[in-house]
């Protein structure tokens, strides 16, 4: 019985390490999706020339999961809640903490973008979107470096912690 409890403890810690490493692995992928989504939004605003709610809706339809949900939430809040766009955008980003693994810096880039979306002329929109895309790209490359460094480390730490605890309890 005691043996099986210790095995469960080791497996549990290993699993926790795996979860920690999976969020590190997931972040660059999500940042790349966001980069793509911002780029698509720029196309919708500058070339397809549609209103922002329709542009966000198109991005929500085309963006990979789970990033699509962020855009869908903004559109829903805009259409139903009659919130100022900036506020709807912020609320959607806060809500996205449940399904996106973004860092504080990543969120700040998106929140800043929300403050300028739709409030100026087309060339200015283009500049803001290009800047957000560039910053997301930088975050993505940092996240990839972090992934290489930390992914195995988290996994190994999980197992090591489990074994250490098991030895102490044994």
């Amino acid at each position: 019985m005691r043996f099986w409890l210790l095995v469960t403890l080791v497996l549990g810690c290993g699993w926790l390490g795996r979860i920690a490493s999976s969020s590190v692995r997931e972040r660059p992928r999500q940042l790349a999706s966001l980069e793509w989504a911002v780029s698509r939004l720029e196309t919708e605003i500058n070339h397809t020339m549609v209103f922002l709610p329709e542009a966000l809706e198109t991005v929500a339809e085309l963006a990979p999961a789970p990033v699509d949900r962020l855009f869908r939430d903004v559109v829903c809040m805009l259409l139903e809640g009659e919130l100022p766009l900036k506020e709807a955008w912020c609320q959607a980003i806060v809500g996205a903490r449940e399904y996106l693994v973004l860092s504080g810096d990543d969120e700040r880039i998106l929140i800043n973008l929300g403050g300028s979306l739709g409030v100026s002329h087309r060339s200015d929109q283009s500049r803001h979107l290009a800047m957000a895309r560039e910053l997301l790209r930088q975050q993505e490359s940092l996240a990839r470096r972090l992934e290489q460094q930390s992914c195995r480390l988290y996994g190994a730490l999980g197992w090591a912690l489990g074994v250490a605890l098991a030895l102490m309890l044994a």
Partner: protein
Amino acid sequence: MNLHRGIEGRQQELASSLSYNQVLPSVAGSLRAILAKVPAKVQAHALELRIRQGRPLALVIPEGIRFVAAGGGLSMEPKEGYLVTEEECRLTLQLMTRSSMYMVQDQLAQGFVTLPGGHRVGIGGTAFVEQGEAKTIRDISQFSIRIAKELPGVASRVVPAITDATGRVLSTLVVSPPGCGKTTLIRDIARQLSWGKTGSWRCHTVAIVDERGEIAATWQGEPQMDVGPCTDVLDGYPKIAGIMVAIRALTPEVLITDELGTAADAQAVIQASAAGVAVVASIHGSSWESIKMRPGGSLLAESQVFRRLIFLGKSRGPGTIEKIQVLS
């Protein structure tokens, strides 16, 4: 006859009330709730809605300006009106532009946006000027919403006067100060000419150059106002470019456009007329003499493009046809 007029009047009242309600989704929810409480009879006759930050909410009705209290009651006393907040102005702007200032940047630079249904909103704020030209407006805090009304039949008296014995349409200029129903009249002229009237006049191919989207109120490609089955609408085109496209591409018999102003507008109209197209247009003014004093007006007078002048006024309410003048 009286019964018929009564039914017609009630139908027009209902249509006007619908126009008022069409505007409400474009204002902030808190203002919408107040405006929805305004008595239905007033809603039906409302001409303009004025929203100004930090000042009382106001309605313009044929009797003059009335201030709207928080409970929807009307007063002539400004102090009794509901004071509009900054947040309400910000939300109203967001709703009017659908969170997309970039889509209306050209209209904004000219000081207006057009709402679905053809309602024109005059926008007030601080102009951002570049090389002497207003590029855009910031700190937008005033909205003057002109409630567009579709009044089928208002041109019934006019159309026979602007067609000759052979049924050909004569170029016509509708003249009046702002708010006297020029757009409503030329819209109905377009409708009646396009539909034709058995025994009176045939169907005409009509092209509308709708620079501000007020005549046909086109929404996602479809005119929201009845402008007739044989009418093409060039929506959002700058007037001069639109007139040229209409002549070259649409081969209209009648070309309709709103609010001529500049000498360049006049030149474009002269060109259309030289191409054999009858032009029905409107212009701000109170008399033919006052129009001729402006550069565009003098050009129009010299060219003798227009054969009929229709003067509108408010002597019996907005849209009163004061005079139809025949020019030789």
